[in-house]
């Protein structure tokens, strides 16, 4: 078609658009909305994709993940199965994998990652009290023994109602009745008189039978990622040490995720008070209206034991005195006072928070495993045995921008050798060494036959902390106590030892992240060629559920766009069909004076494309404006999952050319598609209608 004709078509189209305002505004607003949605939606999703890609690749996953081909489950670095429910197989020997892959030109580095679920003994207030008692007995401090006895009897009193309640609902009543008998024994004067005569016997009874009753909060579940702690911080840009120090090269140790440290390791009373205080002072929330704060406030009074059980005798007296001054109305013992104290509302919360940190917190071990202390980790080996290992908590860390994300903040970092020990693989050397350490310490302290049997099993199993699975009861706790008495193994290791051996997966960091597919192909070729029996997946797949979330969101968006466009198709089709019918006379006239059918077709196409271009551009520009405004102020992430997706507390979206192009293309396509039928109908208009036309 000639230029001048096209010009006339555009002009005619524009004039027709102006002339039929109702039709134009309906069709125009649909196109506007569709274009807005496509540009805004895809820009937002692309931004989330970029953010999440950062969250995942720069925190744990790297660009590619390698793991065993025969893994029963798909690798899930974030989320996924709990407590070793998943089996990701294992890379038996990391060293050749690293050598082969790091030789590839695409690969910058390969870092081993050993995903492992462990339990940690935590919140063992009673153990600390018993330890104090043990010391007092040893040093013959009768006053101390007496006050500790009072405390322990109070603890027993305190446990009684709970246990009574549990007896009503428990299936295994016999066990609870046994426990009630044990409690009654502790509450009797006879027991304490006996303890004075034979302290060891009494102490062992307390440790074996009473301590386990304080189950509340005794176990923490940690999600550990074992890695080369020297190389990891250098290769994962988001890593940031918060408290303490890095694990020195060659030494075993664990770095706790700051988020885990603050939410799970911190005293729950402190944690809930923190949450309420934060909510009231920085987020402008109130306990009366925000369910999150209300939940915390409701929990608090029930958790008074997390204070009362943890206070040393003298400290308990001080706190009681101060509380009486703060709450003159309150009567009753420390427990009752604390419960009153922990009943917080919007009016008193800030005051209670201050009082807690001024008076109570300095007297409490605020963290179950504080930085600098040793922690016993316990894992279930593949063969079903418990393995325990003790490591030092060197510090806490976080991934920048993901400070408040539970998904990213759920994994602690631990050295590979401790991981391998917990996994159930040890060099003979290590086994002997550990055996020596365990023989030397602690075993004689639990000199009761049942405990010994539990510790060593029927035969002389080399690892003293092995216990048959399923006995999470008293015997197990004794094993824990025994292990606790051993200091963290003072072994050191070389970088070779880190590489030589087992890992679950390995992160591959590419030199050019934009060439992910080429990198993946190269790695795939290399592991196939070397017959390593491994598989490689991209970060999105490896991340598990969060990685797929964006795909799901994309699907939902596309579905929404599809539906909207389907509706648009129908509406535009109808509007254009009506326009066609209205213009039959005009079309016939044009045909009569010599316009070909194709010109009539073009007339409609140009008209809808003109409208599409105007309304579509307007929609795209509006979307751009909204996106860039949001890119300026940021979209707050209301919850943890979104924080992870947003790669931080706020998402700053940006639109790219590709979003605009996609918007234009889809709008054009839909406009065209919806006009095809009316345009075809228009071409069928016979020129003879011009002769019949009556105005």
């Amino acid at each position, binding site marked *: 078609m*000639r230029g*001048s*004709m096209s010009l*006339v078509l555009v*002009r*005619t189209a524009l*004039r*027709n658009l*102006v*002339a039929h305002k109702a039709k134009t505004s309906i069709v125009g607003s649909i196109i506007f909305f569709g274009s807005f949605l496509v540009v805004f939606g895809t820009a937002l999703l692309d931004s989330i994709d970029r953010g999440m890609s950062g969250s995942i690749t720069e925190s744990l996953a790297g660009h590619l993940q390698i793991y065993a081909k025969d893994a029963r489950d798909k690798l899930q670095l974030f989320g996924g199965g709990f407590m070793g429910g998943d089996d990701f197989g294992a890379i038996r020997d990391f060293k050749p994998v690293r050598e082969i892959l790091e030789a590839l030109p695409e690969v910058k580095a390969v870092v081993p990652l050993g995903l492992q679920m462990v339990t940690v003994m935590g919140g063992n207030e009673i153990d600390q009290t018993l330890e104090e008692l043990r010391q007092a007995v040893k040093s013959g401090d009768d006053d101390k023994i007496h006050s500790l006895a009072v405390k322990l009897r109070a603890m027993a009193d305190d446990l009684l109602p709970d246990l009574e309640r549990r007896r009503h609902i428990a299936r295994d009543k016999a066990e609870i009745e046994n426990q009630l008998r044990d409690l009654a024994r502790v509450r009797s004067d006879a027991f304490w008189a006996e303890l004075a005569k034979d302290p060891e016997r009494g102490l062992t009874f307390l440790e074996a039978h009473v301590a386990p009753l304080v189950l509340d909060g005794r176990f923490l579940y940690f999600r550990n990622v074992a890695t080369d702690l020297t190389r990891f911080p250098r290769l994962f840009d988001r890593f940031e040490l918060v408290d303490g120090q890095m694990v020195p090269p060659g030494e075993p140790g664990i770095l706790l995720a700051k988020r885990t440290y603050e939410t799970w390791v911190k005293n729950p009373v402190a944690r809930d008070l923190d949450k309420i205080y934060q909510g009231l002072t920085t987020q402008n929330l109130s306990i009366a209206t925000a369910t999150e704060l209300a939940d915390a406030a409701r929990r608090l009074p029930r958790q008074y034991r997390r204070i009362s059980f943890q206070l040393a005798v003298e400290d308990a007296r001080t706190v009681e005195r101060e509380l009486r001054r703060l709450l003159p109305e309150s009567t009753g013992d420390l427990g009752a006072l604390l419960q009153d104290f922990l009943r917080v509302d919007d009016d008193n919360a800030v005051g209670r928070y201050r009082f807690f940190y001024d008076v109570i917190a300095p007297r409490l071990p605020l963290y179950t495993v504080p930085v600098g202390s040793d922690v016993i980790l316990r894992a279930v080996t593949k063969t079903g045995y418990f393995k325990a290992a003790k490591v030092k908590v060197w510090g806490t860390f976080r991934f920048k921008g993901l400070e408040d994300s539970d998904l990213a903040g759920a994994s602690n970092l631990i050295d590979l050798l401790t991981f391998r020990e917990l996994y159930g693989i040890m060099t003979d050397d290590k086994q002997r060494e550990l055996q020596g350490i365990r023989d030397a310490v602690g075993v004689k302290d639990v000199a009761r036959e049942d405990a010994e049997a539990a510790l060593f099993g029927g035969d002389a199993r080399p690892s003293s902390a092995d216990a048959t699975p399923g006995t999470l009861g008293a015997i197990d706790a004794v094993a824990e106590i025994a292990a606790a008495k051993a200091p963290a193994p003072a072994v050191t290791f070389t970088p070779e030892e880190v590489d030589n051996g087992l890992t679950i997966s390995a992160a591959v960091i590419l030199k050019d992240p934009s060439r992910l597919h080429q990198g993946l192909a190269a790695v795939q070729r290399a592991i196939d060629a070397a017959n390593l029996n491994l598989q490689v997946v991209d970060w999105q797949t490896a991340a598990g559920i969060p990685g797929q979330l964006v795909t799901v969101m994309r699907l939902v968006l596309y579905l929404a766009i599809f539906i909207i466009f389907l509706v648009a198709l129908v509406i535009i089709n109808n509007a254009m069909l009506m326009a066609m019918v209205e213009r039959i*006379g*005009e079309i016939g*006239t*044009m*045909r*009569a*004076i*010599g*316009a*070909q*059918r194709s*010109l009539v077709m073009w007339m409609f196409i140009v008209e809808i494309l003109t409208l599409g271009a105007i309304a579509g551009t307007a929609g795209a520009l509006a979307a751009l404006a909204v996106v860039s405004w949001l890119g300026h102020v940021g979209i707050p992430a209301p919850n943890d999952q979104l924080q992870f997706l947003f790669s931080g507390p706020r998402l700053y979206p940006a639109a790219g050319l590709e979003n605009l192009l996609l918007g234009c293309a889809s709008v054009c396509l839909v406009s065209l598609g919806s006009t095809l039928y009316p345009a075809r109908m228009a071409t069928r208009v*016979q*020129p*003879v209608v*011009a*002769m*019949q*036309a*009556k*105005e």
Partner: protein
Amino acid sequence: MPAIVSLSNVAKDYPLGKTVVRALRGVSLAIEKGEFVAIAGPSGSGKTTLLNLIGCVDVPSSGEVTIDGRSTSALHDRELTNLRLHSLGFIFQTFNLVAVLNLYQNVEFPLLLKGHHTAAERKKKVEAMIDKVGLTPQIGQRPNELSGGQRQRVAIARALVTEPKIVLADEPTANLDSVTGQNIIDLMKALNDTLTTTFIFSTHDQRVISHARRVIRLVDGVVEDGAAQARGAGG
């Protein structure tokens, strides 16, 4: 001189439900270049049908219509359209201007369809044509800003701007008052004189018929009177 329009034994049937309306039954006639012909007859006699066949917007049921030497029944839509574009001009009873285009653009439209003129040539032709129909002062106005007579002048200009051999007009004055209708016929006649374009128009207005140089009378789909077909009945 060979006839520019010739019909030989043309019949046109319209199916109407189960019956058939025989609008034309065996019409034969010839019109030569430069003639100014009126087709007269009562309502329903087949005037419009006849013009449709000559105008190539319809084809006969039987018989042969030859326009400028080409038999229309053998032609496809595309060729018929081309024939209309290049050889025919149309003036409609209801003017049929494109509402969204102004006077100038309406007249320019068929030239654009033809496509083989430069912008300057088009401008010259269009302005000259508009001048001929006396509408230069209204050149930028839209059809709805013009009177009926003015609109029909625009239609005439549009029909003539491509310099067609034949101009067809189906009751061009029916929607106009008698004075204006007279003016339109006078204009067509003047253009017929100067341009040697063949004008064929239908009407049942006796005063209009009296201006025709030749009258073809239709009654019930047949040409009524052989003698009346002779040249130079009026004028």
